[in-house]
C-alpha cells in the first residue's frame, strides 16, 4: 500500500464509514421542491420564473449574475408556487423558488438514457461553455463555480488535473459509491476536463480505506493518461493544497491557488457532473448524498434531486431517531450543523449526518496547557493556540502576520485539543475580521 500523504500536520479521526458499500439508491422527486438561488460561492443567481409558471426538469430558472456565480435549473417539473425568502440551513432567510411537483417531465434536450457516451470530439471551448451553462459547482462542499476553474489565467499553464476521490471526512461515502458505480462516466468526465483545460495528465487520489475503489479505478483507467494513486488515510487530505502537495510534492503558495503550481483540482462528483452536462446535456439537478449516523436504521447513499427536503431523506433512511441531537449538513469535520431539517438539499450537500447527544455535545473548555498538539496537527503550519488567543482578545491586526488567512478551516486543531478549546471558532472570527481590515486597506 502506498504511503503517499501530505507532509505537515493532519489528524486521523475514526472512519465511521457506515454506509460504505451501499448501492446508490435513486429517490423519486419530492412533492415540494425548494431551490435556493444561492447554492454556490459568489453572487446569488437572478431568478427567471414567476409565481404560477410551469417548469420542466432541467429548465433554467435562475441565471448567473456576475463572474463568480452560476446558473440554477429546476430539478423537478411542476408549478412555481412561490419565489420568496425561505429559511436556509443557518436559519437566515434567503431567496428560493418553491415548486409544486407535477409528474416528471424533462426538457427534450436532455439525454436520459443510461448509455455511456465516450470519446468526445467537442473542442475545449464548447466543453467550457456547456459546464458554464449546466451550473456546475465543486461538489466536494466548497461549491466554487467550476467554469472559473477551467479558465486558466494568463501567464499560467495547467499541467495536471487532479481528481479528488480522497473523501477524508469520516462518515461520508458519496464519492466512494460514485467511484464504484459510475466509474466509466467518471473517467469520461475526467477526460472532458482534461480537454477543457488542455492538459495531458490526470491523477485520481483515493485514500487506502477504499481499496475496492482504487482497484476499480485502476482497472478502468488502464491504458489511458489518467493514473490512480492510493494514499495514506489522513485528514484533511481532501483539502486542495494538501492533495496537490501529497501527490506532486508541489506547495501551493500562501494566498495562491493550485493553478499557481500548474494544477487544477476537481472532486469526483464534479467530474461526473461534467460528464452528464457535456455528453448528456443534463444540468446539475441532482447529486449523491450520504445519509448516515450511528442511530440511523439504514445509512444510505441516495441520488437526490436538488431541492428535496432533508427531512424526507432522513425518512427514507429509516426515520429520525428519537435521540438525535445534532444534524450536520456535510461531514463531521467541516459540515454545518442544521437548526432544522426542513431545509432543502443543495448543490453542496455531500451528506446528512445525525448525531446523538453524547456524540454531538462539546466537552467543557479547560485552560490551554500548551501541549503543542494543535501546532503539530495544523496542515498549514499555523499556531492555532496563538491565533485563538489573539482573536479572543481582539488583537486582529496581529493575526494577519501570523498567516491566519492561510487557515483552511479543516478543524484539526479543535478536534485534537485535549482541553476542548474552541480554537477554530475563534480563528474563523479572526479570519472574518482580518478580511475586513484587508478589504478596508484595499479600498483606501
Amino acid at each position: 500500500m502506498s504511503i503517499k500523504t501530505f507532509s505537515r500536520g493532519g489528524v486521523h479521526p475514526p472512519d465511521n464509514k457506515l454506509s460504505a458499500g451501499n448501492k446508490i439508491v435513486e429517490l423519486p422527486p419530492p412533492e415540494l421542491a425548494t431551490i435556493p438561488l444561492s447554492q454556490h460561492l459568489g453572487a446569488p443567481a437572478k431568478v427567471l420564473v414567476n409565481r404560477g409558471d410551469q417548469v420542466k426538469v432541467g429548465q433554467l430558472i435562475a441565471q448567473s449574475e456576475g463572474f463568480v456565480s452560476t446558473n440554477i435549473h429546476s430539478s423537478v417539473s411542476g408549478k412555481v408556487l412561490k419565489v420568496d425568502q425561505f429559511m436556509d440551513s443557518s436559519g437566515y432567510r434567503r431567496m428560493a423558488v418553491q415548486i409544486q411537483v407535477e409528474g416528471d417531465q424533462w426538457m427534450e434536450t436532455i439525454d436520459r438514457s443510461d448509455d455511456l457516451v465516450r470519446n468526445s470530439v467537442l473542442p475545449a471551448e464548447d466543453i467550457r461553455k456547456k459546464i458554464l451553462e449546466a451550473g456546475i459547482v465543486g461538489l466536494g462542499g466548497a461549491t466554487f463555480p467550476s467554469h472559473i476553474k477551467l479558465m486558466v489565467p494568463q501567464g499560467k499553464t495547467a499541467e495536471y488535473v487532479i481528481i479528488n476521490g480522497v473523501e477524508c471526512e469520516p462518515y461520508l461515502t458519496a464519492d466512494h459509491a460514485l467511484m464504484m458505480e459510475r466509474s466509466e462516466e467518471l473517467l469520461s468526465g475526467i477526460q472532458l476536463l482534461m480537454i477543457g483545460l488542455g492538459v495531458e495528465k490526470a491523477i485520481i487520489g483515493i485514500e487506502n480505506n477504499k481499496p475496492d475503489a482504487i482497484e476499480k479505478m485502476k482497472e478502468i483507467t488502464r491504458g489511458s493518461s489518467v493514473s490512480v494513486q492510493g494514499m495514506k488515510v489522513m485528514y484533511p487530505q481532501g483539502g486542495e493544497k494538501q492533495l496537490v502537495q501529497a501527490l506532486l510534492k508541489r506547495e501551493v503558495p500562501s494566498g495562491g491557488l493550485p493553478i499557481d503550481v500548474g494544477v487544477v483540482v476537481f472532486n469526483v462528483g464534479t467530474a461526473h457532473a461534467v460528464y452528464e452536462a457535456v455528453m448528456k446535456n443534463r444540468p446539475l439537478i441532482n447529486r449523491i448524498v450520504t445519509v448516515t449516523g450511528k442511530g440511523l436504521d439504514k445509512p444510505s447513499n441516495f441520488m437526490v434531486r436538488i431541492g428535496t427536503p432533508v427531512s424526507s431523506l432522513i425518512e427514507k433512511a429509516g426515520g429520525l431517531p428519537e435521540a438525535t441531537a445534532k444534524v450536520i449538513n456535510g461531514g463531521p469535520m467541516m459540515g454545518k450543523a442544521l437548526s432544522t431539517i426542513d431545509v432543502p438539499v443543495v448543490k453542496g450537500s455531500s451528506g446528512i449526518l445525525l448525531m446523538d447527544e453524547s456524540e454531538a455535545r462539546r466537552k467543557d473548555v479547560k485552560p490551554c496547557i500548551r501541549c503543542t498538539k494543535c501546532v503539530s496537527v495544523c496542515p498549514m503550519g499555523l499556531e492555532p493556540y496563538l491565533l485563538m488567543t489573539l482573536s479572543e482578545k481582539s488583537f486582529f491586526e496581529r493575526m494577519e502576520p501570523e498567516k491566519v488567512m492561510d487557515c483552511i478551516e479543516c478543524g484539526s486543531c479543535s478536534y485534537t485539543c485535549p482541553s476542548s478549546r474552541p480554537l477554530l471558532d475563534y480563528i474563523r472570527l479572526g479570519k472574518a475580521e482580518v478580511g475586513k481590515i484587508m478589504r478596508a486597506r484595499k479600498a483606501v
Partner: protein
Amino acid sequence: MSQIIIYTIITLVAIGAAAAIILYFVAQKFKVYEDPRIDEVEEALPAANCGGCGFPGCHNFAETLVKTESWDDLFCPVGGNDTMSKVAGILGREAIEQAPKVAVVRCNGTPEFRPRVTTYDGAPTCAIAHSLYAGEGICPHGCLGLGDCVVVCNFDAIHMDPDTDLPVVIDDKCTACGACVEACPRDIIELRKKNKKDRKIFVSCINEEKGAVAKKNCSVACIGCAKCFKVCKYDAITMENNKAFIDSEKCVLCRKCVLECPTSAILELNFPPPRKKEPVVEASETEIK
C-alpha cells in the same frame, strides 16, 4: 584602607557625573515639545480610556481638544457636559452642550415571547454565534444572549438577566460610551437621549421581516403595521424596512403609541403606572399565557 574608599568614591562620582552630562545632552537633543495644556485637559477628563469619544484614549482626545478648531464632533460621553465645560474653561473656549444619552437594548425576545428552537454549543460569544446562524430563537435579528456587550462594558453598567436572557442596562452607571453598541453584532443596542427620571419609550425590536414572519418568530416583534406612526403627532416615528423607529430627540413621551401597538413591541420604562388601564407589558404577557 581609607585609600581604597577614597578611590571608590572618586570613581563613582566621576562615572555619575559623566552619565549625568551625557543624559542631559541626550534629553536636550530628543526633547519633544508638548503643549502643557494637553496634560491639564487630560487631568480634567475621566481617565476611563474607554474610547467612547472615538479616540484610543483620554490623552489622544485631550490632544485633539487642544489642537482642533471646531469641537462639533468632540464630546466626552463619560464626563458629559460637566467635564466638557471644565475643559472649555481650561482652554478658555465655549463648550458645546450635548444632551446626555443612555444605552437602550432594543429586543424583548425573552424565551417566553421568542421560543428557543435550538441549543447553541459553540464558543460563547455573540460574534461567533451570529456568523454561524440565526440563533437559538428563530429571529435572525434578535438578541443572542451571549453577552458580548457585557464583556466590553468598562463601567459595569450592563449585565445579562438570567430570566429573560437579555442584557439590562443600569441607567445610573451607563456613560453612553458606545462600547456595547460597537460590540453587538446585531446592532440591537442604541444610544438614546436620557429623559427625566430615566423615562424611555422605544420600539424594542429591530427585525426587518414581514409582519407575519416576524410575529411567528417572536410574539412581541414589531410587525410594521404603522399604527404608532399614524397616531404620533410629533413626527417622532418613522417606518422603514417593516419596522418602526422612535426618534428620541423628537419624542415627547406622550405614550400614545404604546397603547396603540398590537404586539406590545413599544416599551415604556420608568413611568408611574397608569390609573385607568392595566400596564401594557403585563397585558401582553397574560395574552401569551
